[in-house]
């Protein structure tokens, strides 16, 4: 927080540095919540009405139609890796939504705006373009060269809200070893949508992503996308200074 003229920015950055013990994995919380719901005393409202209300509301809230008991559906039918939500199946029909604010910046400015520690994969060198989306995502773009196709690396703090939603068949995902951490490899093309600060999905950002590698290091989630074989993606990931 170099200057306090931007007090609001400084407060946002301070927020990211506050001491908050890591949240337990969502799956663990979901299990605990399910157990509590099962053993919870029945609510005061008439049960059959409540059941219907829960089904309808869960469907409205999530926009997902799943024919299993509502609470269970609401608790677990989603996988989350860092700041990326993985949905099983086809993508949503999206309403029109406002454009997401984004700006092209240099590396220092990207770090200042987001408070993220951004490094560049050594194998790729300096990117052709750096874009900051909503002060939440730093997106490094590399134009295609004779040796490789275009590459995109998104860097964001994935601890709180999810920032991207992906729609695919979950069986197609596969876990890969990245040395100090593990990553998830998602073969392309699959549908990917940006989720803004309010959790709204943005249609103009919906697109088919190429093969993608997602991994997390401490607070930061990385999303590396390129039409490259898996071993080359993991090599790029490994060339990112810690």
């Amino acid at each position, binding site marked *: *927080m170099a200057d306090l003229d931007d*007090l609001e920015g400084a407060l946002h950055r301070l927020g990211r540095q506050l001491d908050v013990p890591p949240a337990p994995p969502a799956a663990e919380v979901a299990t605990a919540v399910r157990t509590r719901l099962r053993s919870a005393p029945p609510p005061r*409202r008439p049960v059959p009405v409540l059941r219907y209300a*829960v089904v309808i509301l869960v469907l409205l809230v999530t*926009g997902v139609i799943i024919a299993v008991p509502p609470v269970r559906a609401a*608790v677990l039918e989603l996988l989350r890796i860092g700041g990326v939500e993985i949905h099983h199946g086809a993508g949503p029909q999206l309403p029109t939504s406002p454009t997401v604010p984004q700006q092209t910046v240099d590396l220092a400015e990207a770090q200042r705006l987001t408070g993220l520690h951004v490094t560049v994969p050594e194998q790729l060198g300096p990117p052709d373009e750096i874009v900051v989306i909503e002060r939440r995502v730093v997106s490094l773009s590399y134009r295609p060269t004779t040796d490789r196709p275009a590459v995109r690396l998104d860097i964001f703090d994935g601890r709180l809200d999810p920032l991207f939603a992906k729609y695919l068949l979950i069986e197609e995902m596969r876990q890969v070893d990245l040395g100090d951490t593990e990553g998830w490899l998602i073969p392309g093309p699959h549908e990917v949508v940006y989720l803004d600060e309010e959790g709204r999905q943005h249609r103009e950002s919906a697109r088919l992503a190429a093969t993608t590698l997602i991994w997390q290091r401490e607070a930061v989630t990385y999303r590396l996308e390129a039409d490259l074989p898996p071993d080359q993606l993991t090599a790029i990931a490994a060339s990112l200074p810690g």
Partner: protein
Amino acid sequence: MLVARYSALAHRTAVLLGAGADAEDVVQDSFVAAFSGLHRFRPGAPFRPWLLRIVVNRMKNLHRGRSRRLVLELRAGAERPDTIVDPEQLALDRLQRDALLEAVRSLADKDQLVVTCRFFLDLSEDETARVLGWPRGSVKSRTSRALARLRARLGPTPAVSRTAGKPAGKSAGKPAGESAGRSAGASAGEEVTGG
């Protein structure tokens, strides 16, 4: 689904509001309350502030035995090593960060609450109003009052760099003018419509 999407934020909210070791319990309890109370949830309304409101209420109950009010728990975390920023800059940043944190801690409870919601939890004005159960106007006025108090407490920027004992010439570079540039970033205008 909802747990996967919101449990990390609920956890952070509980911790920053002072749940301490009870954070996990508060979060689970809030989800149970949210699911059991889904019939009271207005379709089409945003779920996030609704859930956080439950967390805040649980926290009030938790504190009831002690001081009957929310006690914020704000502590600076460990440094993350940053290879790009030079050590001198890092020392300066740390000093400013600590000064800022201290200034936030010295604010009145309600000012701290609004700062925590708006800046540490990244909630919009609308969401903050829903979460705290305040009118939107109060969120707005209290936020700008809290920011003004912080500015007053922190004083002009050069004073901070002087305390750091670093060459004054290298300080941030911009004059400490009263930048009224309210970040129009969160244009929280519309609401999520169901699905």
